[in-house]
C-alpha cells in the first residue's frame, strides 16, 4: 500500500524549440489507474518518460508542479532520479523483446533491480525473484528465471518485464503499451496481472492507443492529440459519452464493435448499393487438405499446418484468425506459392497452383498467373526495395502487368489516387512516409496488376487504431470497386469480424472451427473459439465484460518464430 499521489500540473515538453506536450495536468491517487490515450506522435510516451526523468536528450521539461508522494521531481538530480526509478516508480517498457537484455536470463534482470537498490541479501533476493515471477503468473518460475528472453514467448517476456518493474513494490507503475502486439489470450492474462497491481492499492499509469484495453483498467482517461489534452475525465464518461469529436472518432475506429459494413474512419468513400457477392460466387482459390512440417531448432519436426481446407470465392473475404504460431502465415505462404506444401493441393480457377508429388507445379507455370494473386504484408517497409522511390516500386509492379513504359506514369498517379495518396508522393522514398502511407503504397502495388485475389497478412496489425480504420475502409472500398477477393489473416478478432464473410479459426496448425462470420461470433461451437472470443477486451456498453480465460501452461513447443525457418529459394 502506498498513500502517494502523483501530481502533474501544466506539464510541457519541448524538443529543440518544438513543443511536443502542452499544459498537461492530472492527479493520480493510490489504487487508481489513469490511462493516457492517443495515436503515435501524440506525446503520450514522452509524457510517461518525463515522469521518470527519461524524457530524452535535448528535452526541456517544464511544469508548475511535478511531484510524487510530496517529493518534487522537477529539480531532481540524476542521482535522485536513479533512487526513485524502480524503487518508487516502476516502468514497464513497450517492447519486451528489445527491452530485455538478450544475453541475460530474465531472473538476473530482476535480480539486478533488487541489487541496485540494495534490497535484501543474496538468498532473499533469489527467493524474491521467484516470488515475483510467480506473482505475475509465470508458470515454473524457477526454470523460467534461468531462461533468456529468446527462449520465452511474447507473453512470458512481457510478464518478466512487469516482474522487474514490480521488484521493489513501487507505489506507482507506468506501463507503456503493455499489451500491444500480443495475442488476445496473452493480452487478457497481462491485463489480469495489471489489474492485480491496482487491486493491491498501487497506482497505475497506462499508455495505450487501444481503447478497449483502456476500458478494462482505467478509472480516468486522458485523451492526447498533438501534445494537447482534448478530453479528460472518468473512464465511463469518456468512453460512453465522449464530448470531443476526436474521442468519438477514436471510438468509431475500433473494429468489431459495429455492424459490418460500417465505415470506421470519417474519410468519405464509396457507398455501395450493390449487394455483396454471395456464397454461390465463383470459386477462385481452393485449398485442399494442406499440410506442412518444419524441423525446429531442437531437431523436432512439427506439423505447422495440418489438414487445412478452404474455398475463396470471387469478391468475398475469408478471414483466418489465430494466435502466433497457429500456422496462419504459413498457409498464406503456401497459397502464395512461396512455400511448397508437404500435403494437399491448391487450385486457382480449377487449375493446379501448388501441390506435392504429381500435383507439384513449376514456378515457371505459376509465374504466368502470379499477377492475379497479390499480397500485402504486416510490415510494408521491408517489402520495398530500399533503393526505390514510391514511383519505382509501383513501376516495378506495372512491369509484371505488362504496362508499357510510356503509360506507366499515368497509371502510377491513378494507383496513388485509388489509395488516396497525393500523386507527388511518387518521388518520395518509403522511409519518409508514415506507417499508414506505407501500407497504402503496398496496397497500390498489390492492385497494380489488376489481381483477382489479395492475400492480406496482418495488414493493419502495426497501425494505430485510427490509421487502421482508414486502411480497413480503403480495403473495403477497393473490394467493392475492383471486385477483389481477400484472404485476410489477422490475430485481431475485431478486425476479422469487421472484414470477413467467412472465418477460419486456426490453432496449432489445425482448423478449429470454420463458419460464416455471424454464426462464428454469435454462436461459437468450439471451446477454443469461445475462449478466444472471451479474451477480447471490449468497450463499455458493447456486450459482455471481459472474461479472463483460465491460465493455461503455455505449450512452448509451439513458441518458435516461424519466420526463422523460412528460406526463400529464388
Amino acid at each position, binding site marked *: 500500500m502506498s498513500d502517494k499521489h502523483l501530481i502533474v500540473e501544466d506539464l510541457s515538453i519541448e524538443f529543440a524549440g*518544438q513543443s511536443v506536450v502542452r499544459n498537461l495536468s492530472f492527479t493520480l491517487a493510490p489504487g487508481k489507474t489513469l490511462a493516457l490515450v492517443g495515436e503515435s*506522435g501524440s506525446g503520450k510516451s514522452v509524457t510517461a518518460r518525463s515522469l521518470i526523468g527519461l524524457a530524452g536528450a535535448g528535452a526541456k521539461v517544464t511544469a508548475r508542479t511535478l511531484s510524487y508522494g510530496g517529493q518534487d521531481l522537477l529539480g531532481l538530480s540524476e542521482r535522485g532520479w536513479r533512487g526513485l526509478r524502480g524503487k518508487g516508480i516502476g516502468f514497464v517498457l513497450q517492447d519486451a523483446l528489445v527491452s530485455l537484455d538478450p544475453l541475460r536470463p530474465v531472473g538476473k534482470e530482476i535480480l539486478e533491480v533488487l541489487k541496485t537498490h540494495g534490497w535484501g541479501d543474496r538468498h532473499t533476493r533469489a527467493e524474491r525473484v521467484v516470488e515475483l515471477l510467480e506473482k505475475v503468473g509465470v508458470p515454473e518460475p524457477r526454470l523460467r528465471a534461468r531462461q533468456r528472453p529468446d527462449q520465452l514467448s511474447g507473453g512470458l517476456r512481457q510478464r518478466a518485464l512487469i516482474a522487474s518493474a514490480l521488484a521493489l513494490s513501487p507505489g506507482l507503475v507506468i506501463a507503456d503499451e503493455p499489451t500491444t502486439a500480443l495475442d488476445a489470450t496473452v493480452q487478457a492474462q497481462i491485463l489480469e496481472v495489471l489489474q492485480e497491481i491496482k487491486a493491491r492499492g498501487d497506482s497505475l499509469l497506462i499508455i495505450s492507443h487501444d481503447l478497449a484495453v483502456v476500458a478494462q483498467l482505467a478509472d480516468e482517461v486522458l485523451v492526447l492529440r*498533438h501534445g494537447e489534452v482534448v478530453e479528460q475525465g472518468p473512464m465511463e464518461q469518456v468512453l460512453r459519452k465522449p464530448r470531443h469529436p*476526436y474521442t468519438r*472518432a477514436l471510438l468509431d475506429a475500433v473494429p468489431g464493435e459495429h455492424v459490418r459494413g460500417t465505415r470506421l474512419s470519417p474519410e468519405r468513400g464509396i457507398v455501395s448499393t450493390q449487394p455483396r457477392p454471395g456464397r454461390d460466387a465463383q470459386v477462385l482459390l481452393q485449398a485442399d487438405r494442406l499440410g506442412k512440417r518444419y524441423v525446429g531448432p531442437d531437431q523436432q519436426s512439427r506439423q505447422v499446418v495440418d489438414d487445412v481446407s478452404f474455398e475463396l470465392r470471387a469478391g468475398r473475404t475469408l478471414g483466418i484468425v489465430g494466435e502466433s504460431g497457429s500456422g496462419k502465415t504459413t498457409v498464406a505462404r503456401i497459397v502464395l506459392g512461396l512455400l511448397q506444401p508437404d500435403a494437399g493441393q491448391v487450385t486457382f480457377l480449377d487449375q493446379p497452383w501448388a501441390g506435392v508429388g504429381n500435383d507439384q507445379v513449376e514456378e515457371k507455370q505459376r509465374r504466368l498467373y502470379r499477377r492475379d494473386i497479390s*499480397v500485402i504484408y504486416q510490415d510494408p517497409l521491408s*517489402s520495398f526495395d530500399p533503393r526505390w522511390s514510391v514511383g519505382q516500386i509501383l513501376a516495378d509492379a506495372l512491369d509484371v502487368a505488362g504496362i508499357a513504359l510510356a503509360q506507366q506514369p499515368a497509371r502510377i498517379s491513378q494507383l496513388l489516387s485509388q489509395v488516396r495518396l497525393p500523386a507527388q508522393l511518387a518521388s518520395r522514398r518509403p522511409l519518409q512516409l508514415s506507417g499508414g502511407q506505407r501500407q497504402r503504397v503496398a496496397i497500390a502495388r498489390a492492385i497494380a496488376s489488376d489481381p483477382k485475389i489479395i492475400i492480406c497478412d496482418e495488414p493493419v496489425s502495426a497501425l494505430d487504431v485510427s*490509421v487502421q480504420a482508414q486502411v480497413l475502409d480503403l480495403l473495403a472500398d477497393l473490394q467493392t470497386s475492383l471486385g477483389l477477393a481477400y484472404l485476410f489473416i489477422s490475430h485481431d478478432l475485431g478486425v476479422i469480424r469487421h472484414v470477413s464473410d467467412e472465418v477460419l479459426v486456426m490453432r496449432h496448425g489445425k482448423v478449429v472451427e470454420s463458419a460464416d462470420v455471424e454464426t462464428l461470433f454469435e454462436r461459437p461451437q468450439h471451446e477454443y473459439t469461445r475462449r478466444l472470443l472471451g479474451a477480447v477486451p471490449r468497450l463499455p456498453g458493447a456486450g459482455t465484460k471481459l472474461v479472463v480465460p483460465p491460465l493455461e501452461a503455455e505449450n512452448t513447443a509451439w513458441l518458435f518464430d516461424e519466420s526463422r525457418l523460412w528460406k*526463400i529459394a*529464388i
Partner: protein
Amino acid sequence: MSELTLETTLPGIRVQRAPRKVRLGPLLAVSFLGFLILAALLPQLFAHSDPLAIVPHDAFHPPGWAHWFGTDQSGRDIFSRVIHGTRQSLFIGLAATALAMSIAIVLGLLGGLGGAYLDRGVNWSLEILFAFPSLILALLFVAIFGSGIGPLIVATGLGGAPGYARMVRGQVLAVRNAGYIESAKALGHPPLRIITRQLLPNAMRPLIVTLTMGVGQAIVWASALSFLGLGARPPAPEWGTMLSMGRDFIANAWWLTFFPGLFIVLTTLSTTVAGRYLQQRLEGRLS
C-alpha cells in the same frame, strides 16, 4: 475535414539538422584523388619533361627549382616519373579491384544462392585461399606466369578476391531473405531479373565503401610486387619499381625513394579517408 489525423506529415519530432560543414580531411583526400586521376589521364599537364629521357650530367640532382623532386641516377626527372607513374599505379589498382570484385561476385552468388553443397564448396575454397597470406599467393602467381603488368593485375586481383567474396556471400545471404525479394517473387518477376535488379544492387551497396578503400590497398600491393621486381620492369615509371631502384642510393640521394613512397602513402591515405567519408554519408542516409 475529419477530426482524425489524416497522416500527411512524418510521425515524431523532426530533428533540425545542423548546416553541413565541409570537413578538411575528406576535402583534401578527394582533391588529391582528383589530381591523381587528372595526372593519370593527362600527365603532360603537370610534367613537361620526358620521364624516360636520360641526361647523364644531370644525375643525382637534389630537389630544386629545375627538378622539383630531383633526378635519379640516370638524370631522369623524378617529378615527371612520379606523375607518369600515376597512370600505371591507378590503372593497376582499379583493374585489380575490378577483377577481385568480379571473381567475388561470381563466388558470392554461387555460395549465397547455389544451395547447401555449392555453398560449402565455395566456403572451403575461400578458406583454403585465406590460409595463405594474399601476398604469398600473388607471389606464387607471378612466379608461375612471369612478371609484367598483366600478371601483376591478375595476381593482385586474385589476392583480394577471397575477402570480397566472403563479404558478397554474406550480403547475398542477408538480402535474399529480405521481404522485398519475396515480394518481387510474389509479383511474378523471373529469377534473373530479381538477381540483377534487386538482389545484387542491394547486396553490393555496403561494399562500395570497401571497394574505395580496396583500390588503395591494391595499389600498395602492386607497388610491393613491383618493388620485388615482379611487376613493371625498369625503367618504366612505376612507383614500386622506382622505390626498388632508389633503394641502392638511399644513403646519398633520399629523394629517389622519398617521393614515390610519399605518393603511395598519400594515395592510400586518400582512398581510406574518402572511403570513410562515403561510409558516413551512406550510413547517415540509410538509417
